[in-house]
């Protein structure tokens, strides 16, 4: 899932300076799971902003609405009948959600309440770590299910650099060396032979942004439209 964290309240307040009618829009998918921008977090943020404005003696209208996903047009349509009532929309979606919301309601100011971090997994309650950098060319079959593109500081594809130090990375001594992890995993799986295969240079062209993708089933329809 996409992992994000809330911006400091001071920063959010600075963005909202001068607006009196605020609609906070949550997203019920990734950012709800990583406890940053779901229904519950929207409720909490709204309560914080309300309390703060009351303490400063300038009450504002702060309403909430959480949609199932901010990255799908269908769910954004649910906001249509409400947005006109507000000066500004504060989105607790990831960067994609904020942009899609701003695109759908392009006559409204849409502000981000979160900093989007990475694609990751939940290591434990409240702890997430990055596992994928969306390189567009997955090689996890060769590396025992451990991604050297993400976990190796140098993105090395053919074994460790000279800096691996008792299983730790030379760039950051706190982090594990991805290639030590890969070696141990392949050893456990009895697939050390995979290490002898030389990986060709990575096609970084595939990662060129902005990415766009049409599902095969829809390609014909798209051509037909054109």
């Amino acid at each position, binding site marked *: 899932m996409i992992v994000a964290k809330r911006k400091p309240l001071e920063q959010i307040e600075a963005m909202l300076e001068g607006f009196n009618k605020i609609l906070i829009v949550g997203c019920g998918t990734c950012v709800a799971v990583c406890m940053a921008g779901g229904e519950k977090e929207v409720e909490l943020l*709204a309560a914080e902003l309300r309390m703060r404005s009351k303490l400063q003696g300038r009450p504002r209208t702060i*309403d909430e609405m959480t949609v199932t996903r901010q990255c799908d047009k269908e769910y954004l349509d649910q906001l249509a009948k409400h947005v006109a009532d507000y000066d500004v929309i504060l989105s607790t979606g990831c960067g994609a959600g904020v942009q899609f919301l701003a695109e759908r309601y392009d006559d409204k100011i849409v502000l981000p309440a979160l900093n989007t971090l990475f694609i990751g997994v939940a290591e434990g309650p409240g702890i997430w770590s990055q596992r994928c950098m969306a390189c567009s060319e997955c090689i996890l079959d060769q590396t025992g299910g451990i991604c050297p593109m993400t976990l190796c500081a140098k993105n090395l594809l053919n074994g460790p650099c000279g800096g691996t130090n008792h299983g730790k990375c030379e760039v950051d001594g706190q982090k594990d060396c991805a290639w030590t992890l890969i070696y141990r995993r392949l050893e456990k799986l009895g697939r050390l032979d995979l290490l002898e295969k030389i990986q060709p240079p990575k096609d970084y062209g595939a990662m060129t942004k902005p990415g766009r993708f049409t599902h095969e089933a829809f390609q014909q329809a798209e051509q037909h439209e054109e």
Partner: protein
Amino acid sequence: MSEARAAAPFEPKVVAYCCTYCAYTAGDLAGSMRLEYAPNVRVVKILCTGKIDAVLLLRALEDGADAVYVAGCALGDCHFQEGNLRAIQTVAHAKKLLAEIGLEPERLEFFHVPASAGPLFAQRANEMTDRARRLGPNPLRSTARQPAGGKLARQPDPHPPLPPAKHGKLVHHTE
């Protein structure tokens, strides 16, 4: 603040979220022991302190409580294994949020009150009331949606329907 309220001595309103297995039972025991403690404390019985959410704590303060505390089982005694540990985290997080907002984090606290500790229950209730008295009235009390005094805005529904999913619905806050 109105003159009438300024003239009357400040009586803090304290909300105590008590776990049914430990702190609430301790409260019962305090009663059976005829212990006297501050009448300012409003006890809210909850199944487990692990259920407490930062929103609930903030909302109590937003609605005018001068101090709020969560009382749960002693370490290792939680009926649900780790509910009190979660509550400690939740309260610590909510305190940070209060500091962010600009309200004294001391208005919020977590206490361990084992079921057998009637006197401790009374002590904590007095301690928190004294603390609220020292901190003074909650500045949010004047803008609270319900008047302080503990009256219910409406009678609770004896058979409440299951809460519907709120996705796609506007939550409007009437002031």
